[in-house]
């Protein structure tokens, strides 16, 4: 066998690597245009600093340790809030999807609460918790709860009844039916909930941090505004974008791993 034969066809065109890079072309082009516009004075630096200035501000904050500390604090709040709200939402979604009684008991209440914008609770939350960690965690958990609750419930209710009947015919116990049929069937919908929830997670956290916090990315941006450090403000916004992308990539990866059976995730 010759050397060329042993190389898979796709690899020989270098396609997989190009696929990974291609998505970054647009953000890069935007940054380049932005830099040029700043350098030739099209955009005044008081309105929008050049990307190089933003990078410089980032570098300084990185050296002082402030950036890493704030990112870490925000990341920690986001994950803990997500875990708390997500697990409660998941539990309610399971309970109400599987039990008529539980659904009758709680669904109406939850639907009412859902229609209150959770950020409207900020004044109340500050009164309850002060500007403590728990205030932020509470808000994030509340925001994350509903998309996960709704999509888990929807996923369980829309599992193909023919498959459930099949499982019963083949003598599956309730536990086995859940593990083999209902949960895997609801999983794609649960992931939709997770991705929605990740977006809401960042949104809630940033709003909460800009209003009531003494650390974190939102706090860093607010402080910078006080001192007219517009480059730091822009830096914070760029970091939000990157963190959002990171969360999305992570959930996508998890989807690829657990939904390998799904035609949408199969590699050709």
């Amino acid at each position, binding site marked *: 066998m010759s050397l060329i034969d042993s190389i898979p066809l796709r690899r020989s065109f270098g396609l997989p690597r190009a696929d990974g890079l291609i998505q970054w072309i647009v953000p890069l082009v935007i940054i380049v245009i932005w830099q040029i516009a700043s350098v030739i004075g099209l955009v005044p630096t008081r309105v929008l600093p050049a990307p190089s200035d933003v990078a410089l501000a980032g570098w300084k904050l990185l050296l002082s340790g402030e950036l890493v500390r704030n990112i870490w604090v925000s990341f920690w709040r986001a994950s803990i809030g997500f875990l708390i709200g997500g697990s409660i939402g998941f539990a309610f979604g399971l309970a109400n999807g599987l039990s008529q009684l539980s659904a009758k008991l709680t669904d109406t209440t939850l639907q009412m609460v859902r229609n209150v914008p959770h950020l409207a609770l900020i004044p109340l939350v500050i009164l309850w918790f002060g500007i403590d960690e728990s205030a932020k965690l509470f808000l994030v958990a509340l925001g994350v709860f509903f998309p996960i609750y709704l999509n888990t419930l929807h996923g369980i209710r829309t599992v193909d009844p*023919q*498959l459930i*009947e*099949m*499982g019963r*015919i*083949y*003598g*599956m116990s309730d536990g086995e039916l859940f593990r*083999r*049929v209902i949960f*895997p*069937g609801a*999983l794609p919908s649960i992931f939709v909930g997770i991705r929605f929830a990740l977006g809401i997670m960042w949104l809630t956290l940033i709003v909460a941090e800009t209003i009531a916090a003494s650390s974190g990315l939102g706090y860093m941006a607010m402080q910078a505004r006080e001192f007219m450090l517009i480059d730091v403000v822009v830096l914070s916004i760029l970091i939000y974008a990157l963190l959002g992308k990171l969360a999305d990539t992570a959930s996508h990866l998890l989807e690829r791993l657990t*939904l*390998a*059976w*799904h*035609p949408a995730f*199969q590699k050709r």
Partner: protein
Amino acid sequence: MQTALLLPETERNERARITPQARRRREDRPALGLPLTIRNLRKSFGDNEVLRGIDLHIPAGQFVAIVGKSGCGKSTLLRLIAGLDKIDAGAISFGEAARPEDIRVMFQEPRLLPWARVLSNVEVGLGRDRASQDAHPRAEHALTEVGLADKRDQWPSVLSGGQKQRVALARALVSQPRVLAFDEPLGALDALTRISMQRLLERVWRDQGFTAILVTHDVAEAVALADRVLVIEEGRIAHDATVNAPRPRERGSVELAGLEGSILRHLLSADDRT
């Protein structure tokens, strides 16, 4: 065993793949069919009385086809036999105490779990024996039986319609059922796949000796496969025809065509009366 000259290639291959062990295994433990007796069976859905008193005896190992127009109650009868719905009045008995694994159903849709590989889908059919040591070899044996041993690690989504239905057949066969009920299992397949599936059904029925009950709207299929064809009209058995043609049956032979014609006339004459 029958040999037909015009077997599709896939089927010829799948026969060649049956191992000697598989054959021996079958002889070791012949899964004998269960007889089935139905007395004055009735079933209504709301005000709609679907079955109005069915009396029927099916001897062990017989291949019975049930035909009739849509809405005549044939699928309901099958679901009652399989224990999927509750009986309103009357009785169904299997001669002796039947375990749940003894009675299996195959539907028009394959109903495979999309998130389980082909082999685990077949293992589902083992019922309570799923966790046992020999679950794997038994499932593999059933897959070999339907000629899909090489697809064991595939996801169902990559299989063709006919292949999915064969996996569903393997899942129904893996517990070595004594009664196998088919609810139009070939209804959604194309004509050629249908014919090769019909041959497969006939072969596994002959090999394993279960009692087969096939609900179909295709009279030609009923006549080609069954020992006996029941026509159901308005919730009652209107006609009970025995098919004596020797097996292997030749499709389109004069004898089968004549029988098909007479059953069709029976089905259509009901139309004229109403």
